[in-house]
């Protein structure tokens, strides 16, 4: 039989547009797999010539799912352009906003996008394998998902005025102080959010046993891991240094300054993707392949910082003697981070200065270069700007969470496809598993290419001459 390839396009229930091509050998077994991202929007260029003060609002438009992460990394880069330290209250308000976004984005990924696979099964009818199908079969869980996401989105709205693309985070701090009323509203919502987070975590842990095959094959291989840690090596999403660990859990670099990212992160170019493939320079390419995001963050830290999350983290770490390697556990890590975020939000709101009116430092730019970092729900993002003497942007480089995971996602797709896909007998459930690998990373392709688009899903088997041998449609 001639060599064939299978294309999955688009992948559903992820954000943005991507496709997967599976290359089969003569026996119809998967030989190679490629995860492609298609399209582009061009943020690095059209920010040129814009005043730096506009950049946070412009850059937020990269992504409608994690606009707050871009807003924060961008504003931090602008703080550096100003050359000021921002008021502590402003930093804490930004932290709360960032954590609220982590909750809503993780909830969207877990409940709306992935939980239908866990609940209804990877082989379930795709017509009901979605959030609306869940609302019919498991209304409580669907409601929990909606509620938990609402908790995060509502905080963003109460603090910043609107849920998507708020303009509240600005160079030098935030635009306005927190109202006592907003603080009390958030605190009142904490107990319900926490109850949902904990019962979901219990349910998910109990159901892990049913996914041993997926755990074994969904991107289960050694890589490095990278994420921000605070000065005590604790879980951190707003500031701090970047730590890199290896598969055995050994710390390779105990925290480099994110401003020096170019010394540590190289970008390799692969034929199959529009995305560049970042790697950890000291380890070389491709050994320097690393993962970021919830799984990586829980792997690199020494502690979780908040009491309930700390217990869960200890249990999570016990899964493996070294780093927890299977990308299926991204889901697990996401739930633990939700618990941490809710605890941290409550703690920050209890800070005596949180209602302080001084939330913005004023200055004219003192530097021509600024680099800002934050942990987005999907991993580390870095915004790097250069400005001229008029404060106009003259160059921008953006390193985006999904981009870091590019190499690992490709390898994961290949691993799962080799295990599950038999090219001679295509079944829906096989292909859903290949898509589910990608969903475990919760990639945000709007972010990674600053672009997207979508098609009806079609999987085609092509012979060597390009003729369609078989076809599956959804």
């Amino acid at each position, binding site marked *: 039989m001639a060599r064939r390839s299978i294309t999955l396009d688009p992948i559903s229930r992820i954000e943005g547009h991507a496709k997967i091509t599976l290359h089969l050998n003569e026996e119809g077994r998967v030989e190679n797999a490629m995860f492609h991202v298609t399209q582009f929007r061009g943020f690095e*260029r*059209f920010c040129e010539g814009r005043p730096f003060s506009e950049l946070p609002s412009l850059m937020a438009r990269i992504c409608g799912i994690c606009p707050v992460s871009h807003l924060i990394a961008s504003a931090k880069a602008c703080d550096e352009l100003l050359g000021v330290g921002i008021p502590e209250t402003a930093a804490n308000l930004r932290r709360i906003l960032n954590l609220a976004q982590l909750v809503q984005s993780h909830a969207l990924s877990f409940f709306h996008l992935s939980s239908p696979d866990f609940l209804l099964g990877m082989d379930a009818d795709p017509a009901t394998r979605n959030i*609306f199908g869940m609302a019919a079969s498991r209304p409580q869980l669907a409601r929990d998902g909606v509620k938990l996401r609402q908790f995060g989105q509502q905080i963003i709205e109460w603090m910043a*005025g609107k849920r998507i693309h708020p303009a509240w985070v600005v160079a030098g701090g935030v635009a306005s102080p927190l109202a006592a009323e907003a603080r009390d509203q958030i605190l009142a919502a904490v107990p319900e959010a926490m109850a949902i987070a904990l019962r979901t975590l219990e349910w998910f842990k109990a159901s892990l046993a049913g996914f041993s095959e997926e755990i074994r094959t969904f991107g289960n291989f050694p890589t490095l891991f990278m994420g921000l840690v605070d000065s005590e090596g604790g879980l951190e999403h707003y500031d701090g240094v970047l730590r890199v660990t290896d598969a055995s859990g050994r710390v390779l670099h105990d925290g480099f300054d994110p401003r020096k990212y170019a010394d540590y992160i190289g970008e390799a170019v692969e034929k199959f993707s529009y995305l560049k493939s970042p790697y950890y320079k000291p380890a070389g390419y491709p050994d320097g392949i690393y993962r970021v995001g919830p799984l990586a963050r829980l792997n690199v830290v020494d502690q979780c910082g908040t009491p309930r999350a700390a217990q869960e983290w200890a249990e999570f770490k016990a899964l493996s003697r070294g780093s927890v390697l299977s990308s299926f556990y991204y889901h697990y890590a996401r739930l633990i981070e939700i618990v941490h975020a809710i605890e941290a939000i409550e703690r920050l709101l209890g800070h005596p200065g949180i209602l302080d009116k001084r939330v913005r430092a004023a200055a004219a730019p003192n530097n021509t270069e600024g680099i800002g970092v934050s942990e987005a729900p999907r991993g580390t993002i870095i915004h790097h700007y250069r400005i001229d003497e008029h404060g106009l942007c003259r160059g921008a480089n953006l390193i985006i969470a999904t981009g870091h995971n590019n190499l690992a996602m490709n390898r994961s797709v290949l691993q799962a496809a080799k295990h599950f896909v038999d090219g001679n007998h295509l079944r829906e459930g096989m292909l859903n598993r290949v898509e589910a690998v990608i969903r475990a990373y919760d990639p945000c392709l709007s972010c990674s290419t600053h672009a997207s688009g979508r098609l009806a*899903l079609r999987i085609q088997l092509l012979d060597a001459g390009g003729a369609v041998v078989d076809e599956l449609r959804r």
Partner: protein
Amino acid sequence: MAKPRVAVFKFASCDGCQLSVLDCEDELLAIADVLDIVYFPEATSTMLKGPYDIGFVEGSITTHHDAERIQQVRRQCGVLVTIGACATAGGIQALRNWADVNDYVRTVYAHPDYIQTLKMSTPIAEHVPVDYELRGCPISKRDLLEFISATLAGRKPNIPTESVCIQCKRCGNVCVLVARGLPCMGPVTQTGCGALCPRYGRACYGCFGPSETANTGALTRQFRSLGLTDDEIARAFRTFNAWSWQFRQASEEAERA
């Protein structure tokens, strides 16, 4: 009345507008009761074939492939509604319409030759007839729910097209343009955001695009009297709705001045 079959399509965008559908938390499950959402790749793996009674389209047209796809989408949809600044005005990526797109691609991508992109990012209405548009970056949940309930009731949606100024007055905001001399786009921008930026003491930056009968010439003169340069005026009109004809004209006039 049978449940209308609804589809949500995405082109070049950030996903924020379709997420506004999921943001209707309290109403989300109620929406699922009255509408049959049969195509929504962001949220579901089902992608049932058309025809659809209502098609919501997010994003702008930036590739040859998308230019063809929007034709198919149009044929499948009874009512076609564009949602957000990308779909109605080309979005922020339309800023490349004034630049050399190949230059853009080379800056960003490892394999520029892999990128097959159009020179321009254009709104949906430049390709197919559009029945209704919901504005904003992103759209407002209120407008979306109003559109859905009006359609179900068979009446015209009550979505105001006046300027942000009217809303500002209703909110009792102090005018940031007059009182603080900020270059506010409110006088020419359609309402819908609840005058959010002026409420926070910031100048409006035009998320909802041109209001009905926007007087951009008068605003340009006002900006000049505040001391803005021609470049600054052009930039004020060039954000998320830069390719709407009103803002495009205003920015190009300022550039020529």
